[in-house]
């Protein structure tokens, strides 16, 4: 990503240093018309506060929920969202694309 995004990586570092549990979710692959390109990221803390985006707002809720588990377990996880996905009815991408999101703990 070009560094035009708001500085969410700085927030990730600041939150971690302030003693919060922090996870980083990054779009690693897209197919079709995905709203955010590979490299876009979302940072989440254990209070549920998040910054940035991995989609146009379609799947952020689900990513935040998964991120909570990742902060707990410390194990990274790969998430996939798309219209072909069974969960699409709930949290699919309205644009018809598919994205894979890598969620990892910071620290």
């Amino acid at each position, binding site marked *: *990503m*070009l*560094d*035009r995004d708001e500085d969410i*990586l*700085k927030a*990730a*570092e600041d939150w*971690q*240093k302030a003693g919060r549990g922090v996870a*980083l979710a*990054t779009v*690693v*692959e897209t197919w079709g018309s995905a709203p955010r*390109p*590979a*490299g876009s990221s979302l940072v989440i803390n254990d209070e549920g506060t998040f910054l940035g985006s991995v989609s146009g707002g379609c799947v952020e809720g689900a990513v935040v929920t998964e991120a909570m588990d990742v902060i707990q377990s410390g*194990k*990274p996880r*790969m998430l996939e969202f798309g219209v072909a996905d069974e969960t699409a009815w709930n949290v699919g991408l309205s644009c018809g694309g598919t994205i894979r999101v*890598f969620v*990892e*703990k*910071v*620290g």
Partner: protein
Amino acid sequence: MKLAILHELNAERAARRPVILVTDTETGEQRLVKAADFAKDPLRAELEKQLRMGKSANVEVAGKKLFLNVYAPTAKLVIVGAVHISQALAPLARSLGYDVTVVDPRTAFASPERFPDIPLIAEWPDTALPPLNVDAYTAFVAVTHDPKIDDPALLHAFERNCFYIGALGSRKTHTKRGDRLRAQGAKESDIARIHAPIGLAIGAVSPSEIAVAIMAEITAVLRLPPKEKEEAA
């Protein structure tokens, strides 16, 4: 992501130095590769290609699935000369994602009415340029046609190793410019870096068309691999 990696990533970004974060998406293992270290990296070719494109991507190397996340600084464009071409060039460059600044000591030219919403500095290059942190992620164009303004600006661009340096003027004008810059201590290799006449040869006539030619040339220098770049020039 380990805190040490995140800290280093943020430090490199703050310093406007490009880096790529390599993540094994199966194990979560990560390493950060600074652009200065690409040449000695086993993923050299992939890293160089992705940085040039400014695009993150997945690669598979020796059975490992790796995600290369590119952190490239926002490219800047410094336009010396608040002339008619610049009025078309500044918004065009901005739409292409550049941070644009226009410098011209002539206040009649550098007026907000002529450049709505574009950062303007109505100072001589010696005063205006040092605080702009002109760097290797900066494209630099000198279009005043006035040697008193263009020449010191170009000397600054050489010193800061801008990825693109262009100057307005015919071949004849450019030959004279070369002589003047040489007399002021510029190296032959510096002068050779100037794209002049500025812009790709697309037969541009109007200021807007010249702006398109300039941005096309800057894009080619930014994105094409070195060999194809030579062919385009």
